[in-house]
């Protein structure tokens, strides 16, 4: 197990390095840097002025070297202003230029400065992650139990009417991306002119004008049933169908096993067979799937946070990408990549742990 873990960790670190290098190169392409120079200094700079600005701010050097500096394995660049003031990657950020450290990259905890939010990258991402954490928590609380129940009920008796109808529900939810279900849900439940809300308000069943709120901005301060239901449902719906189908597949497979038949022949009730004998084995595969859903949830988070204007991690990523905020985008991608890799690791380890038939060697 230790060797397996060690090998996985090495691969993980290697993957993370390759990916961050990729993101670094793509965000630091020449046209992006020119755009950065024009937004930071002046929009009407000539090409020559852009060149000097880039050179003076340490951008006119090989991408690989600057990646090393960003990572913190190479010493930060140093130079001087035209008026002789010392400049440099680490000097600009230190309160005292003379006492500035030589290395200042991600490894030293220096993630850079966000040009959009005018704050440290760590602060911006931390704020977003906190908000997204709540969203994910509620999505998990809603999605996982309902998906498992759906899958188990459908897979319990393969080919029955319940199976057919629940499987169709699962197919419909997987066919509905978040930007579609979000729009439909808002119109159906959170519009004062269309859908259910006007009817309910007319009948006096709801006190406000709409059943739910179509934006989640107020959920940043206080999460309520009113403002958080739609974003959570939107993300949960799309992931739910997939997990439910996987659970169904694994459940039908287990229900065909000999030991289930033996238990039935022994006279154990169907209920007992499902609860005692089938469930534990049927839930191994969905566990992996749930873990591997995290990268997809990340996508859903970006879409839903944009749609409902909830200022979490996904919203931060969109702001960073849309405004050419290079260091924030790098920070976001590091977080995203780490989340994906860690969930992959957990899913592998968990699979081995849950399934005694598989032994790592």
């Amino acid at each position, binding site marked *: 197990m230790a060797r397996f873990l060690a090998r996985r960790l090495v691969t993980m670190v290697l993957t993370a390095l390759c990916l961050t290098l990729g993101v670094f190169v793509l965000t630091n392409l020449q046209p992006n840097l020119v755009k950065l120079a024009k937004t930071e200094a002046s929009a009407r700079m000539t090409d020559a002025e852009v060149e000097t600005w880039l050179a003076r701010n340490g951008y006119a050097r090989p991408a690989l070297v600057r990646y090393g500096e960003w990572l913190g394995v190479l010493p930060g660049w140093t130079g001087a202003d035209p008026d002789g003031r010392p400049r440099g990657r680490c000097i600009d950020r230190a309160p005292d230029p003379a006492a500035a450290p030589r290395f200042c990259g991600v490894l030293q905890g220096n993630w850079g400065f966000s040009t959009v939010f005018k704050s440290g990258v760590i602060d911006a991402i931390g704020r977003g992650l906190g908000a997204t954490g709540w969203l994910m928590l509620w999505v998990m609380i809603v999605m996982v139990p309902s998906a498992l129940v759906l899958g188990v009920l459908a897979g319990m008796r393969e080919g029955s009417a319940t199976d057919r109808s629940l499987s169709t529900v699962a197919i419909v939810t997987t*066919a509905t991306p978040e930007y579609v279900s979000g729009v439909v849900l808002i119109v159906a439940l959170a519009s004062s002119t269309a859908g259910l809300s006007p009817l309910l308000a007319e009948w006096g069943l709801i006190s406000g004008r709409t059943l739910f709120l179509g934006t989640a901005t107020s959920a940043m301060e206080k999460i309520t049933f009113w403002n958080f239901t739609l974003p959570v449902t939107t993300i949960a719906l799309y992931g739910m169908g997939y997990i439910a189908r996987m659970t169904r597949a694994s459940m039908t497979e287990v229900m065909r096993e000999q030991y289930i038949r033996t238990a039935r022949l022994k006279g154990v009730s169907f209920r007992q067979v499902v609860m005692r004998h089938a469930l534990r084995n049927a839930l191994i595969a969905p566990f992996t799937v749930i873990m591997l859903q995290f990268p997809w949830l990340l996508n859903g988070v970006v879409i839903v946070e944009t749609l409902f204007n909830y200022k979490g991690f996904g919203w931060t990523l969109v702001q960073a990408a849309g405004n050419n905020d290079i260091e924030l985008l790098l920070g976001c*991608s590091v977080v995203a990549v780490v989340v994906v890799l860690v969930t992959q690791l957990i899913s592998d380890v968990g699979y081995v742990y849950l399934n005694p038939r598989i032994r790592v060697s």
Partner: protein
Amino acid sequence: MMEPLGWGGILARAAVQFLPVWIALAAVFAVSIRFRRRLGLYGKLFDSGIGMAGFAIVMFWVFTALFAGWIITHDPLAQLSGMRNVAPGTPLASAEGLYPVYLFGGDSLARDVFSRMVVGAQRVLAIAPAATLFAFMMGITLGVPAGYFSGRLDTGLTFLANLVLAFPVILLFYLLVTPEIRATGIPTALAAILFLFPILFLTILWNSRFFTNPRKRSIYIGVTLAVGLWAYSGLAFNADPLGVFAMDPNLLNVFVAVVFVNAPTVFRIVRGLTLDIKTRDYVAAAQTRGEGPWYIMLWEILPNARGPLIVDFCLRIGYTTILLGTLGFFGLGVSPESPDWGSTINDGRRLLTIAPHPAVVPALALMSLVLGLNLLADGLREESLKD
């Protein structure tokens, strides 16, 4: 001036507009059901209710895209005065020579939502199946050897595939589909690599089968290379001497990004299937017979992996449709007036509480197409498992 239409009137008029589609659907279904016993897996599809429903939905959109010119009621870009955000079924103020009504209402720029939905189908169905096909070509050309030869090649390719898969898709789109990146020429370079795979695949395919018959081989490979390289020069570099094949740089960027995202998953599926199939007896028999590795891979293993691949192909077109919608939703790689479903949803969502129809119509269209593809895949899987 006529009265605003009720929902019954709107649906009746829309049904009339779709007349060419109904006729084509009826024809396809009549012929297919009549000859279904002779049509292999495709014919068996008509034994399963789910598969038939999925096929009907998919073909509805395919024919809509084909006959879009006859179906649309207005120019999808025309802005008519007084029609901003009007409700479905609103008649035009002055309808000289024009269709007298906006069937599904008008959007925030006073354009016809119905016509934009129809033209949007054309956009989606022009890109999604082609991009999926390219992703499959790449996944197969790399996945079969990786599974068959194993070893270093497999390790390296799997690492690369996992690398791309570890990227959150939206982040990748934000990095790969930007005007800045088009300026650097990276999409063209990527296209140059990606578009090479179909030619490579077909050349190896013909060569491994017909190398004992040089005349036939020369003809097949010659035609492949001539047509392939001709299309290649036009699609990847926009340098087709005859000007038949060309791709808008925006479109090329989107296309390349979508292929790039899909190919690693296909690679993993194909590799897994190959690992499974290469232990079968008929592969051992072919090896004993002295067949070359490429013949075994492409003519023994690949045909036997077709069932799961066809099913995944259908699912993946649906997924690609979702990806294209995502790109449009974030306004990546599309021009502002583009009628594709993702960007229309994005445009419409700002006024969702006042005028829901500009966003809901393309949203339901996209959902129904993906649902149709998923149902079709489900039907195909069920029928292919029965063998």
